[in-house]
């Protein structure tokens, strides 16, 4: 590559090296070099011995991406702070400086308001989420296994999955009144369908040969379900769990922002109504952090429990 692949991932790939994207650059012990082809370059032979690079250099190599991430956020917030302090692009009434947001965040944590509202929000979400898992996964399994139930319920489940279920929230609020039950119902309605659909789709992919093999070895229907279908479907169930958690978050924030006298969403709404942007952003920050953590947790679970199927990452 003539220009050394400056800046282009596509071009960089031409040279065949992943550069410093890999977690830590591993150096092969010198006594192994030039000998039998090792496992790493596709041959047989012993794994290359890896040398621990110590000190700052090693630390930098191992945590390269993390360091860049931290630096990235630091630069972002510092630039934000400087721009909004000296030459505000947007009126600081609407986009306050990060230090003001942090100060507000600290105050709200210290006086307990934020903790209390967060507890209310996440209790509702947890209850709703557990309910939808409790009903969604078994329903998906049943629909996947039994053709008849798939025929009968499938279209509705699909329609409700594709339709914006949150649209019905005003009617749910009208029926159940403002409060935790309505909130839980809306969240559960949001989280339920992706779970059921994903589980059902997963069951559809179960290889029939495996089922036949299990049958040949004398497995009954329950055993086939327990030993073949469920393990085979696990990646889809986990993907469903992740999609369900993002949808549950959406439902939670939606109900709390518009129809609730409590919760994190309510704090955002209330702070916005009195033009207290710093508080609003501090709560938004909490919502962002908890959403990212939850989604990443489920991504981690997917990678940990179903490492063989990292293909279905949507």
């Amino acid at each position, binding site marked *: 590559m003539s220009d050394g692949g400056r800046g*282009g991932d596509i*071009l960089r790939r031409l040279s065949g090296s992943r550069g410093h994207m890999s977690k830590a650059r591993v150096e092969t012990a010198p006594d192994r070099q030039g000998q039998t082809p090792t496992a790493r370059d596709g041959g047989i032979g012993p794994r290359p011995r890896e040398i621990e690079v110590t000190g700052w250099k090693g630390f930098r190599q191992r945590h390269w*991406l993390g360091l860049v991430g931290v630096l990235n956020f630091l630069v972002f917030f510092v630039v934000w702070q400087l721009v909004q302090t000296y030459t505000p692009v947007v009126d600081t009434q609407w986009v306050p400086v990060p230090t003001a947001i942090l100060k507000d965040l600290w105050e709200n944590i210290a006086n307990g308001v934020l903790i209390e509202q967060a507890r209310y929000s996440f209790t509702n979400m947890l209850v709703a989420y557990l309910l939808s898992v409790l009903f969604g996964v078994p329903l998906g399994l049943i629909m996947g296994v039994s053709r008849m139930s798939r*025929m009968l319920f499938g279209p509705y489940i699909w329609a409700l999955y594709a339709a914006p279920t949150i*649209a019905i929230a005003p009617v749910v609020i009208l029926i159940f009144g403002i409060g935790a039950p309505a909130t839980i119902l809306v969240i559960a309605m949001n989280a339920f369908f992706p779970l059921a659909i994903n589980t059902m789709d997963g069951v559809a992919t179960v290889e029939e040969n495996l089922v036949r093999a299990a049958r040949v070895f004398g497995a009954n229907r329950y055993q086939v379900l327990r030993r073949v279908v469920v393990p085979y479907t696990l990646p889809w169930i986990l993907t469903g769990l992740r999609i369900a958690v*993002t949808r549950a978050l*959406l439902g939670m924030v939606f109900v709390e922002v518009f129809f609730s006298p409590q919760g994190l*969403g309510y704090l955002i709404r209330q702070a916005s109504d009195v033009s207290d942007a710093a508080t609003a952003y501090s709560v*938004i920050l909490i919502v962002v952090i908890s959403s990212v953590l939850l989604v990443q947790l489920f991504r981690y679970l997917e990678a940990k429990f179903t490492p063989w199927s990292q293909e279905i990452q949507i």
Partner: protein
Amino acid sequence: MTRDADVDTRSAAGPLSPPVQRVSKDGPRQRFGRLLRSAPGVVLLVVSLVVLIAVWQYAQTRIRAVPPLYLPPPSAIWHALLENFRNGQFQQNIAFSLQNYGVGLAIGASAGVAIGLVTGGIRKVNIILTPYIWALYSTPNIAFQPILIVALGFTPLPKIIMIILGVIFPIIVNTIAGVEKVDGSLLRAARVFGANRLQLYLKVAVPYTVPFIMTGLRLGATRGLLYMYISEIYGSTNGLGYMVLQATHRFQTPTAFAGVVLLVVMSILIVQVLQIVPRFLPHTREAKI
């Protein structure tokens, strides 16, 4: 597992053996099952919809299982739908909603594709932007709405921003995934034939990414519709969401349900259009992820 009967007959029959005659000693249940199996999907959908609506209508007019205020019978929803079309309520609100949606979708989709292509293609940009993209994609962006409304007022602008926020992230994420998955051998081949960096990008990476963009577009378009609706629930004096909320405030649940039905129909139509139109365009089939 799901088709036991078929499995048994098939495994019993060798390639040269005569076709197995099904012994028909099945009762009405089996016959019903076979009928279900042989019917095409659309027929089934229509039949099950008709049954649902009939049961719903009967339950709510004769038995009144749930107070009709909470769950009006389908006939009442239909009447509300017709009435609101006749007096122009729906047309006016839908026009307002769709106008915002169109602007938001156009801006969100073009910006999303541009950002996705640049981010996916240039490693440094990718490393810097990815955390922000994922943070905003994971977060329910409705959280930003109250402050947007207070800052920008009851104008279409905050609604358009919400729609853009809804549309843009699935498109960015899918476009990045597409660019990252470009087949290395294609790139090498283009390189061998003397393509420079721009040509490599425009002639190989972008066409390769189009199917991914289509997937993102479909996800983004439905998400954008949802955000359109949400953005009208609060801080709006017009639009579909506003109409539904007003109807619930006045206890006109049939109108509210009619609005929800309209939203669902719109969302199904948009998905269908986005799935059918690409079939007639070259190289735009959706990626199978």
